[in-house]
């Protein structure tokens, strides 16, 4: 034993001269983000196939199936109307899953964050890195949906080039919201309420499948409160280059929602990481 430890001493890279200062904020956030990228791309096939498959199923099942009966929606061909809505729902789902089940498992089961907090990272770095990672997933998922839509000839790709940025904003919004939910959750099963009670209904009542104007007047204010409505409107405006004053409200909504929910989530989750 002692002979092996002496030889270990000899091969030890002579250091102590290395920089022992903590990295700057940008590097810290980047390194958290990079951790998520590395883990995600370990299982790229199983992780990245569903975002292509899901919108494909909806396009074929609803677009082409129902589209045979409903040809037009709000002056647009139904298949195009649907496709432009599906662009951001994929971003919503991926960010919501990542920052609920994903975050909870890292926090409570694998204790990944507790491990990372031994390195020069703060709890804030972890949470902000997490939000940006979910937003990045929102971007790539929206991008993959636009590729599917373009391949099927539903919409030309050049119209969709900028939509992934709406996917990024959507991902960020749902990351902040989901992290806030996670900060309250004690057992993983509680997320079922969040998904069945909030995310899934939102999917159907945010103007993805039909215009929210068709809903009863009493339901209209609710559609203006929920976040997906605004993401869908922005994605559609960008796709068809049709901007109205309502879209200004959408942008303000997205910014305020992210800022408020992001700040509260940051504050609450930090107390869960730090005693």
């Amino acid at each position, binding site marked *: 034993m002692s002979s092996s*430890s002496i030889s270990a001493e000899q091969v030890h890279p002579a250091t102590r001269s290395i920089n022992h200062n903590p990295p700057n904020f940008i590097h810290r956030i980047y390194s*958290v983000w990079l951790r998520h990228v590395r883990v995600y791309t370990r299982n790229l096939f199983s992780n990245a196939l569903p975002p292509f498959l899901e919108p494909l199923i909806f396009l074929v099942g609803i677009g082409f199936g129902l589209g045979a009966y409903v040809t037009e929606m709000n002056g647009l061909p139904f298949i195009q109307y649907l496709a432009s809505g599906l662009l951001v729902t994929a971003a919503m789902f991926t960010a919501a899953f990542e920052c609920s089940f994903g975050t909870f498992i890292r926090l409570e089961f694998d204790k990944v964050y*507790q*491990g*990372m*907090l031994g390195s*020069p990272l*703060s709890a804030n770095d972890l949470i902000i890195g997490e939000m940006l990672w979910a937003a990045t997933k929102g971007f790539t998922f929206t991008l993959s949906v636009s590729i599917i839509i373009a391949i099927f000839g539903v919409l030309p790709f050049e119209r969709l080039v900028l939509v992934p940025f709406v996917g990024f904003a959507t991902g960020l919004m749902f990351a902040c919201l989901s992290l806030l939910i996670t900060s309250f959750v004690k057992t993983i099963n509680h997320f079922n309420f969040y998904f069945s009670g909030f995310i899934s209904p939102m999917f159907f009542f945010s103007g993805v499948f039909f215009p929210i104007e068709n809903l009863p007047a009493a339901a209209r204010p609710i559609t203006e409160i929920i976040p997906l409505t605004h993401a869908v409107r922005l994605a559609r405006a960008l796709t068809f280059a049709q901007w109205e004053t309502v879209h200004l409200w959408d942008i303000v909504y997205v910014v305020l929602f992210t800022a408020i929910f992001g700040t509260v989530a940051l504050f609450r989750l930090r107390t869960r990481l730090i005693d």
Partner: protein
Amino acid sequence: MPIGRFSVTSFLRYISTIMSKPIVEVSHLYKSFGTFRAVEDVSFAVRPSTCAAFLGPNGAGKTTTMKTLYGRAVPDVHDETRMRVFDFDPRSDELSVKAKSGVVPQEDNLDVELNVEQNLRNYATFYGLPHEFIERQIDYLLDFMELGAKRRARTRELSGGMQRRLIIARALLNDPELLILDEPTTGLDPQVRQVIWEKLRNLKHRGVTILLTTHYMDEAFQLADNVVIMDRAKTVLEGPPRQLLAENIEQHVLELMNARAAPAAERGAGDHAYWRKDQLGERIIYYANDPQVLRNMTSGIHAHDYLLRPVNLEDLFIKATGRSLNELQ
């Protein structure tokens, strides 16, 4: 002449240890969770290249004390509290502390989705160290922790001992000056514990300052230059292990496996001998400074029914913290 060089180095280390100011200095530390006092007025200092061990039952406040040193726990606001690690106050500058330290937390928290090498490479990114240094350090640490053969193994497939060694390797990536270990060998088999102790001793000889918590007395005795015994949020005893034993407890122990032998033993001791008695169920323990007293006690007892031995930290620990279990154990 390796032997000559080693003695010179150890002498220099001894001198510098005496002369230099502590790397960690904490005084009047308080921490409560709601109404529960986890740490109450704890003070300690750790000199460079030494090992300090925090001993105590579960819930004594050892882990919380460690966590305050690197920002995992925020101490209560208290006028008297002073904290310094290197030249930083961990309450306001935890990142500077962590950049120069390595932390081995109590829970196994490797990235189970990454293999051994990827775990290290990924963690190294958090320090922002140069690429070549990281690669060299990974090769070196896998060798040092005897994990070279497991380089590409999935973390899930590692044994408990290997996971622990990998977590220690991870804490050494930045070549830290201070290593904080929270129960580094809990739940490991004796061989693995020996290996880990050997590695930690090796690190200490290279100048790394080590702070660890444990409830294994032998671990503290093997590694620590200084022991802090904590119980119910407070420091009960503090000092070098041998000195603690010399000053706070009788030096010899007689253990009786069967309580029925007690009257015979006490008669054997004679009238004027000093001894102290402690009972745990069927087991009776006599403490005395004069080993002859204890030897006299054994005269009427069958050799299978007793054990004569020098006192150890466990005896002191039990004397200092009391026998009954606390509500957190």
